[in-house]
């Protein structure tokens, strides 16, 4: 499957500079780039020199609210052109959002595109953060906080302009999203494959391990940490395998009661019905990927581990919820579990 990376970051955080540099590097070849520009007159795509026919600019609307359908159609068109030999045989897609975009609806569109099944896979989100102005941006723009919170990789840009290390900002980013890998770039210079690798993230144990072994499994395993705008990262660990129906109900209740406040969820779950192969779950707000099954456990650790990042999430509630669901499923073990799985009342 072709990985799709979403490149986001607040206005002026260096997304276009980064893409401009990457498009000239051999490591970024065979990449289709889609740029979303907000406004009647797009400029960003003119700032990037390319003659590649797999380069597309989406204008006149913000991806997260107005042109999601356009995005889906564009991706379908890219696939058709690729299959017909009218576009280069790209192996990766990068979608640059506008600076004010909320990445979550874009991810929903990508995750739910029915025509994408088996062809594209959402590989992850890269968020650029201006090393000089990032702190102030986070102070004043909740959009920027959300862009950081949903990221798989954070790229600190403009580090060449720093007079001293941005340790305060990096600590703040780590607190907002302890699961994301933090990279830095000066003059937009960073190796393409460090940012947008070609492996499907859900299948990459090392990437997943980062999510599941960050501080969330250390001190935060005992209590959630509340950060900017009440955004907290929460880790849930279960020694015993979970029943598939229990996990399904957990996701359903989280989606129903947390909704837009659940920014990201990732997990490696030991399913009681299939203990030899862990299930990888991945969600953005109320939308969840179909689980991916790893071929084997990446380590000796076979505990189920879930990491949630969201606004106003409470660890105690999620722990109590999971305990209640697991207990109820055990009590209902047998044919009655099917009734409970519908959530009907």
């Amino acid at each position: 499957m072709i990985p799709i990376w979403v490149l986001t970051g607040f206005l002026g955080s260096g997304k276009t500079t980064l893409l401009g540099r990457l498009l000239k590097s051999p490591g970024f070849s065979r990449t289709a780039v889609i740029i979303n520009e907000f406004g009647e007159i797009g400029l960003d795509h003119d700032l990037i020199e390319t003659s590649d026919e797999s380069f597309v600019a989406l204008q006149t609307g913000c991806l997260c609210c107005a042109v999601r359908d356009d995005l889906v159609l564009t991706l379908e068109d890219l696939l058709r052109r690729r299959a017909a030999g009218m576009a280069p045989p790209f192996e990766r897609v990068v979608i640059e959002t506008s600076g004010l975009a909320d990445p979550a609806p874009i991810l929903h569109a990508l995750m739910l595109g029915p025509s994408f099944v088996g062809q594209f896979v959402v590989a992850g989100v890269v968020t650029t953060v201006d090393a000089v102005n990032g702190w102030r941006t986070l102070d004043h723009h909740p959009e920027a906080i959300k862009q950081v919170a949903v990221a798989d990789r954070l790229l600190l840009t403009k580090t060449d302009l720093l007079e001293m290390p941005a340790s305060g900002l990096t600590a703040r980013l780590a607190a907002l999203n302890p699961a994301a890998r933090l990279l830095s770039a000066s003059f937009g210079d960073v190796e393409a494959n460090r940012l947008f690798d070609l492996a499907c993230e859900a299948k990459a144990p090392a990437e997943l391990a980062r999510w599941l072994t960050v501080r969330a499994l250390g001190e935060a395993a005992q209590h959630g940490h509340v950060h900017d705008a009440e955004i907290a990262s929460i880790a849930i660990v279960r020694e015993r395998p979970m029943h598939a129906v229990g996990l399904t109900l957990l996701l359903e209740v989280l989606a129903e009661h947390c909704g837009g406040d659940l920014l990201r969820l990732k997990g490696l779950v030991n399913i009681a019905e299939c203990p030899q192969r862990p299930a990888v779950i991945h969600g953005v707000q109320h939308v969840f990927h179909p689980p991916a099954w790893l071929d084997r456990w990446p380590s000796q650790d076979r505990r189920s581990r879930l990491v949630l990042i969201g606004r106003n999430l409470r660890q105690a509630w999620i722990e109590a919820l999971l305990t209640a669901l697991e207990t109820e499923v055990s009590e209902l073990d047998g044919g009655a579990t099917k009734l409970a799985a519908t959530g009907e009342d």
Partner: protein
Amino acid sequence: MSTAIPHYVVVLLQESLPAWGVTGVVSRSADGGLEVRAAAAHLHITRAPAGLPFRWLVGDGGRSRAVSGVPGLLRTVRASIDASYRPIAVRIAALPLAP
């Protein structure tokens, strides 16, 4: 089967109120059920009688609703005590039991 509400339900509801940003109290009632008092609501939760395909009954004034499990219980309780709650019909497809 005991008619008392099990401890895991008590804990869950006690944790649910602050998670939803609702001020209220969850306490056991004399009949082994639960009382939830929040906002203007006063709910009485009991086990559903044996033989019914439900787990819990949620009484609200003169009205009683039967629910089949924890997800339905949370939905019913929250809808009664949280004016800002807008139930959404989220259904997660059952996880396949094999890869």
